[in-house]
């Protein structure tokens, strides 16, 4: 075995001869965080930086994002990369709403986080006006290392999220504040 392979730390639990007992939330969180499948919502220049991130040199796939999907039903994290115009906002919202839980959103770049340099009548000043965002990656555009850093921060978030969060009233309130009413 090579020495420079980083192994995932096992969560706290009771280990014994041939068994390991821990909480299901921790194990599921660990599994989810190491296999986040992205939905690349690439609009502008940040999308090009994302292409570089997916390419072999920076390689997002080694973080578990082996399968990017353009279908929201099969993706875990929505990566919004680029300027979102006000005309595009309902499309983005529909795509987010059609994602299957658990779902997370990363706003990559200044334009997705806050409208960026484009403080004008046609540009949405930050995607958190239409969908809830988990991680913001600043930059114009952010370097691939920064995008990877954002995804690693999301992995921390995912690892520590309880499985029952999506049924909790706080989550329902959060979505209701964006006009998404889950029955």
């Amino acid at each position, binding site marked *: 075995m090579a020495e420079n392979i980083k192994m995932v730390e096992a969560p706290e639990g009771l280990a014994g001869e041939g068994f390991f007992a821990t909480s299901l939330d921790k194990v599921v969180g660990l599994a989810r965080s190491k296999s986040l499948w992205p939905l690349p919502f690439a609009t502008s220049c940040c999308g090009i930086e994302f292409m570089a991130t997916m390419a072999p040199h920076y390689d997002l796939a080694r973080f578990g994002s082996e399968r990017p999907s353009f279908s929201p039903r099969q993706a875990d994290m929505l990566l919004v990369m680029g300027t979102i115009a006000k005309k595009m906002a309902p499309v983005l919202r529909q795509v987010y709403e059609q994602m299957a839980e658990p779902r997370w959103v990363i706003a990559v770049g200044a334009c997705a986080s806050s409208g960026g340099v484009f403080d004008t009548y046609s540009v949405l000043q930050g995607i958190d006006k239409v969908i809830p965002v988990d991680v913001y990656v600043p930059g114009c555009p952010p370097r691939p290392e920064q995008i990877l850093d954002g995804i690693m921060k999301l992995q921390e978030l995912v690892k520590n999220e309880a499985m029952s969060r999506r049924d909790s009233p706080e989550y329902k309130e959060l979505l209701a504040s964006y006009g998404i009413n889950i*029955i």
Partner: protein
Amino acid sequence: MVSSNLDFIPILIQFVFVAVFIAGMIAVSHYVGPKRHSKNKDANFECGVKQYGNARIPFSVKYFLVAILFVLFDVEVIFLYPWAVNFRDFGMDGLWKMVMFMGLLLVGFFYIIKKGALEWE
């Protein structure tokens, strides 16, 4: 060891087990799984835009014609196989019967060609 029909019972048991297992898995995930619906979430995915109408379009009839004629003549070929195996035993009598059979189907084939049903345009 003479094999009898009873030797195949384990296969039947395996088959039933697989069917019950699959149905059980689907049922369990249906009852135990989370259910979070909303009107937009259940709508068909159309890349975020509104869906207009359904996706049915007019369908060329030439595909159906080719397929159905293939099936017809393939069945005719299936009838030719036993005759080919027992060619000598059937003799002149068998030959005449088969010629009549194929002749009738040939008339049909002639009709198809004349009508241009196989024209792929």
